[in-house]
């Protein structure tokens, strides 16, 4: 027989209090992400930044260093990342809608921002938190260049290509009357708009059952 478990209420309470205090004692953004630019180390964790990033950290700025110098913290302005500029020819940018600044920072250059992302020319519909805002990678798009920057004409998607079946399968299909009993070559589309989920497979099973009929 299992012994009855002792209910330790005080230990529970202590656990909750410890969790609450840990939550309260979390370091602020400005402390967590502070950086010593001479030694490229973070004073909070003592870790050094990766060497390949040192050049960028010296030359570029974080998102909030740019936001702190703008009216209303740059709400409504457009920001790009240097890595996007290098990697993708299509325009990718964040348009800022909401900002929460860490007011403890001396130059008001830490915090969180939310905005609408346009990645490779495709604009999203929801406001999301700006990712990687602490990276030294951000550039402000000046107002007189905004229109020019956003201009993008998406190339039309190439049409779906069709490919012939392997020879044995092709012979079988033609012998059975073919997927298309019109004397044409049966082809396989290289791209299908199908979400492979449980519902799809169960519906495929049912259709096969219907076609084959019952075993007897």
């Amino acid at each position, binding site marked *: 027989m299992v012994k009855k478990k002792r209910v330790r209420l005080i230990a529970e309470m202590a656990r909750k209090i410890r969790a609450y205090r840990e939550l309260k004692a979390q370091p602020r953004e400005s402390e967590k992400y502070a950086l010593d630019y001479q030694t490229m180390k973070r004073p909070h964790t003592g870790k050094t930044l990766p060497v390949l990033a040192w050049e960028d950290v010296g030359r570029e*700025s974080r998102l909030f260093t740019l936001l702190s*110098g*703008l*009216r209303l913290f740059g709400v409504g302005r457009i920001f790009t990342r240097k890595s996007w500029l290098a990697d993708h020819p299509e325009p990718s940018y964040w348009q800022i809608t909401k900002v929460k*600044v860490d*007011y403890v920072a001396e*130059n008001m250059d830490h915090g969180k921002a939310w905005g609408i992302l346009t990645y490779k020319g495709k604009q999203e519909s929801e406001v999301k938190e700006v990712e990687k805002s602490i990276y030294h990678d951000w*550039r*402000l798009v*000046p107002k007189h260049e905004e229109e020019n920057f956003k201009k993008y004409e998406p190339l039309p998607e190439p049409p779906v290509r069709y490919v012939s079946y392997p020879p044995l399968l092709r012979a079988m299909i033609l012998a059975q009357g073919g997927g298309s009993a019109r004397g044409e070559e049966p082809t396989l589309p290289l791209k299908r708009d199908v979400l492979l989920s449980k519902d799809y497979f169960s519906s495929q099973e049912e259709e096969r059952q219907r076609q084959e009929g019952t075993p007897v």
Partner: protein
Amino acid sequence: MAASVLQRCLGAVKVIHKSAYLSCAGRRWLLSAAYTDTTLWETRKKDPQNLAQLAAFMDRIYERNFPVSSLTISRFVDSISSREEVDQAEYYLYRFRHSPNCWYLRDWTIHSWVRQCLKYGAKDKALHTLKNKVQYGIFPDEFSFNLLLDAYIKEEDFKGACSVVEEVMLQEACDLPSTQILSLYALSRYLATKPKLGVSEERGLGASLLIVGLKQNNTVGLSAQLLGSALLGKVEMAEGIHAVFRGMPLLWTPGYVGRALAVMEKVAAAPGDVKLTKDMIDSVEAVLKELSSDSDSSEGEESGGEEDRKGESGGEEDRKEEKMVDEDDLAERAKLPQYASRFQELLSQLQSQGKVDAAPLEALVSALAQQALPRAEEPDLEQYAGRVRDWESERRQLIQREVEARERAEMEKQARIEARAAAQQG
């Protein structure tokens, strides 16, 4: 009552404006008296507070780690009555900026801060807070910028005026034609004094010339764009493209000298009456000459220096020197002789088409100011009057909300005291 007072003052402002417009011609300064008139501002419903009390109140709130409301700081700035209090207000603005409510610093507080600084002769204080706008949170609207610029221009302090224009450029607040005209005037007068420019000053001047010039589509604007791009190109050649656009609202594609030449091409190809001023073109020529002579001398130095450094074991410095000269920047410097030759071609083209204006830039800007500024001021003033009304209504709402919150707190406190008394008795 406040509304009728405002209406009476609006009528008064219109009358003053018309009379000033007629007698504007002989004046030395640019903005008409109606623009810098303080009657509309002064006749708002005032809430005189004891500054010492407010200061003590704010200190207590900061100690207890509560947020200070924007109404308190606006009351503080409104009740400034002497030069020392301007300094105190600066301290409290700094503290407000570093509090959780920093986003809610109101437009009217900033406007009244600029007005008070000008009233008590603390222009340099206003400029100092503007320059450190990150720390103080001062982002004035264009009307306040116009007032500040006008004060500096009246005192012929063109270096200070150019610093203000740099701030206008950094905030990209040059949408109103009045701001554009005033900034161009300040810049042209400053350039006419032929100052000695360091690299960062050149960068600031070039950027402000370019951005303000982009808005105007006439001789003045295009000449400003030309000289701005040329100065930025000079900085680019010397320091690299990163030094140009860091911290400034500028594009990061290299080739600013190329863009200056593109402006010249555009003017040469344009069918209208647009010209480029001779002194701008001369300055651009001087810049190009300086760059070519610099590159010649530095090439000789570099080859000598590299041979020396190859023998050294100080590898880190070597790497840093090589890293600074990026591939793009090297490509730019290689294009310099091409730029120089193209400049000569375009210059001869412009001269043959008669599109080089011999008048100096400041004369043109003054003429433009005389014509266009009065017209530009009218919509500004109307907009300002409307905005003052909005600010007043917002302030009344805030005061009402504060009063209601205080009443509610009082009632809750009463309820708690009664409950405690009942519990003690019962």
